[in-house]
C-alpha cells in the first residue's frame, strides 16, 4: 500500500511540474484543438485565388506566419520543411505548407510565389488585407508587431510568434512545433498521424 501511495504522489508531482513547465513555455496550454474551432479561414493564395482551409480536408497542413523579407527564421523554417518532406517519404504528397504573410505591404502574390517556389516544397503563400490576416492570426493565437527601425536599412521588421502549426486532415490543430524542433522531430510526428 505504501508503494502505491508513493507512486501516486510521484505522478501527481510529475504531472503538476509538467503542467507548470508548459504553462510557462507556451501561450496556450497544449489544447491545440481550441485553435480555430471552426476549422476554416479564408485568404488569397499566390495566384490570386481564394483559399479556404476547409477545401483542404484530407491534407496535412503545416501553417506558419512570416514575411519574405525575414532573412533568418522564415528561410530557416522553409529549408527545414524541405528536409521534412524528404523524410516522410510517400506521405509528402499529402502535406501542404501554408505560409501566411504578416507583411502584405511588401509581400505581393508574385513575390510570395517566387519565394516559395525556391524552396521546392508543396507550399501556398497566403495574403489579404491587414484585417483579414489579423483575423487568421487571432484564430491561431499568434501575435506579431511591426517594428520601425530608423537605424536599419531594412526600414521595418516584425517581431512575431515562431510556431509551426500542424493541422490534421480534419482541419484541427494537433501540434505546435518550435524553432528548436528539428526536421526529424517534425517528420516523426507527421508519420504518427493517421
Amino acid at each position: 500500500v505504501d508503494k502505491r501511495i508513493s507512486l501516486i504522489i510521484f505522478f501527481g508531482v510529475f504531472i503538476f511540474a509538467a503542467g507548470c513547465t508548459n504553462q510557462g513555455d507556451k501561450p496556450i496550454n497544449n489544447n491545440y484543438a481550441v485553435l480555430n474551432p471552426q476549422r476554416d479561414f479564408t485568404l488569397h493564395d499566390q495566384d490570386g485565388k481564394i483559399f479556404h482551409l476547409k477545401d483542404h480536408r484530407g491534407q496535412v497542413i503545416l501553417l506558419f506566419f512570416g514575411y519574405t523579407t525575414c532573412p533568418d527564421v522564415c528561410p530557416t523554417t522553409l529549408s527545414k520543411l524541405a528536409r521534412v518532406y524528404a523524410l516522410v517519404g510517400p506521405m509528402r504528397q499529402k502535406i501542404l505548407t501554408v505560409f501566411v504573410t504578416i507583411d502584405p505591404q511588401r509581400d505581393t502574390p508574385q513575390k510570395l510565389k517566387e519565394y516559395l517556389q525556391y524552396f521546392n516544397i508543396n507550399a501556398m503563400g497566403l495574403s489579404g488585407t491587414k484585417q483579414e490576416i489579423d483575423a487568421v492570426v487571432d484564430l491561431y493565437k499568434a501575435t506579431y508587431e511591426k517594428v520601425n527601425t530608423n537605424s536599419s536599412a531594412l526600414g521595418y521588421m516584425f517581431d512575431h510568434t515562431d510556431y509551426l502549426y500542424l493541422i490534421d486532415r480534419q482541419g484541427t490543430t494537433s501540434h505546435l512545433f518550435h524553432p528548436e524542433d528539428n526536421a526529424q522531430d517534425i517528420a516523426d510526428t507527421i508519420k504518427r498521424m493517421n
Partner: protein
Amino acid sequence: MVFKYLFCSIVVLTAFLGGIDAHAGILNEDIVASDAWVRAMPPSQTNTAAYMVIKNKGPNEVILTSVSSDISESAEIHQMSDMKGMMNMSMVSKLSIPGNGEVVLKPGAYHIMLVNLKKPIKSGEIVQIRLFFKGGTSLNVKAEVREQ
C-alpha cells in the same frame, strides 16, 4: 606657426603608427573567422544573412563595431531572440568577442544582415565580408553562399 605644424605632424604620425600597430597585432594573430557562409535566397529577395564563428585568441576583449560586404549596399549586425515563442530581431551597434573566447553567428541568433543585394546570389558563390573592430582594425572573411 612652426610649432603648430610640428604639433599637427606629431599627432597625425602618432595616430598613423598607432593604427598600424593595432591593425597588425589584432588582425593577423588574435581574430579568426571560420565556417563563414551566406544564406542563398530566391532571386527576388534583396536581403540575406551571413553567419560565421568569430574567435578571439588574444586575452583582451575585441569589439566588432560594423560590417560591410561586396554584394550588398549595406550590412548590419543583428540579433535574434526568442522570448517565450515571440521571435524578435534587432540591430545591434556592437558585438563583444571576449578574450580567449568566441561568438557564434548562426540562424536564430546573432547574424550579419546583408541589405539591398546588388545582384542575385547563387549557391557556391564566394562573397567577401569585412569586419571592422574598435581601434581601427578589420578582417576580410570569405563566405560561401549555400542553402543551409
